[in-house]
């Protein structure tokens, strides 16, 4: 047993944006401790696993330490792109909460 799990939801806040068939989702840590956990554990691999049913990837992670924010660029994630997608949420606005639902080690 580890010390328990924590959701990204409890560590930071998120926003999703779209460009063509690519979704970008930022995760901003609430504090320094959360920032360390996110940097260590919220890897592109972990994110792609959570988005497996939705996105093909690849996933690129950019770090912005001054803002305590990670920016994930998730390619092939929006059903071909906003203008042609068959999805109701063609912009992928709701995907920020799929990111926040990811469980990490506390």
């Amino acid at each position, binding site marked *: 047993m580890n010390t328990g799990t924590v959701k990204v939801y409890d560590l930071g806040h998120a926003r999703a944006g779209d460009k063509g068939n690519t979704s970008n989702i930022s995760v901003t840590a609430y504090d320094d401790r959360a920032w360390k956990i996110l940097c260590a554990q919220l890897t592109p691999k972990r994110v792609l696993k959570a988005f497996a049913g939705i996105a093909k990837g690849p996933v*690129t992670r950019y770090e912005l330490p001054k803002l305590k924010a990670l920016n994930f660029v998730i390619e092939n994630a929006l059903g071909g792109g906003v203008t042609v997608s068959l999805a109701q949420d063609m912009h992928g606005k*709701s995907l920020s909460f799929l990111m926040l639902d990811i469980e990490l080690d506390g």
Partner: protein
Amino acid sequence: MAIHKSTIRVGTGAGFSDDRIEPAVDLAERGKLDYLVFECLAERTIARENLTRLKDPERGYTPYLVERFQAVLPACVKNGVRIVTNMGAANPLGAARAVRREAKALGIADLPVAVVTGDDVADIVRNNPQLPLMENGAPVESLLPRMASANVYLGADVIREGLATGAPVVMTGRVSDPSLFLGTMLHGLGWRYDDYAKLAVGTLAGHLMECAAQVTGGCFIDPGKKDCDDPVNIGFPYADVTADGSLTLGKLDDSGGRLDVMTCTEQILYEMHDPTSYITPDCILDITGVDFKQESKNRVIATGAKARPRTPTYKVVVGYHDGYIGEGEVGYAGPNALARAKLAEKIVRERLQKRGFTYPEIRVDYIGMSSLHGMGTGRTEPYEVRLRIAARSPDRKAALAVGFEVRTLHVNGPSGGGGGSNGIREVLAVKSILIPRHMVKTAVTVEGTL
């Protein structure tokens, strides 16, 4: 000779074509603004408006143009607030004329409007079929027979040129969103178009403000976790920018929403990929050094933006016809709801197949369960499930059949299916190309008497 100010205040009037009207009026009335910028063009809007213009040569501008100007013109004229907007869409000249008619109806006999043209490069694209698509490298040639529009994202220089005419309103088609804002600073603060330290500040300001309420509490609230004041009346942002390049974002004190380091941090990364290289027609912005500091309630200071010189090309969005999407929905609730929805799906699929229709892509959603984040694992069955089936086809008949077969479940389908709906829409897709700047010829003309 132009007289430049040491500080200007620029407000956002709209963050998308269907945005609320009254926050702009509030800013125009009591915001002490110099400029009010309305960003109203999504990627495919111009393609759609080109189709409108084909039917009516007077139209082809953004649908809410008249309502917006009717609402804000009185306060803007009274307070000397100049308006910059891309509401011209596929017909900036037609938009300018519509604005002038509306002004006249409001008692402003001759409202000069500067019109920026040259973003429409459909002819240039037709004459250069070899240009490669950014998405897949294939030549643009294959899209030409289905092309509905081709427009470059112009930069802040054309906004400066429009403002330099002295007209109270600058009307454009496609201009990059941050450039609409940066242009007011080039003009109002006398910034040079090669002073990249300043272009960085103005581009950052534009990027933070272009989606209006998204930096002042919109797309932010999560009740009990991240709340804000008066979410019914969220105020739109303004920026105070000084000639030497300081930037403070604000919103009016008794407007709703919030403006703080959290809202700014979410918005700075919105639609951002590599944070060292946000490419606009004006510069390549690097936000990795940006810091936000709360100055007071509703005011945030942003520092640390950097920029590299602009690229030698303009980005072109090509809009083209890409077939149809047909869809249908029906809801089930109570015991065995999911199983009934799944049977309904099976029936529709088999009937479409039996009728000889095939589709390059069919999507099935169980709304309430899997429509937004997919089926996941271990998800419990909800009390209600709404089945949605959508499919694309180049053939209108095949697309129509999807909704038809969902509709016929009304009397032929599983038990207890209710609240059906169905429809079809024409798809206007977009792809991008880059073209050398020298190919693009812009012009600024003025409608009315200065």
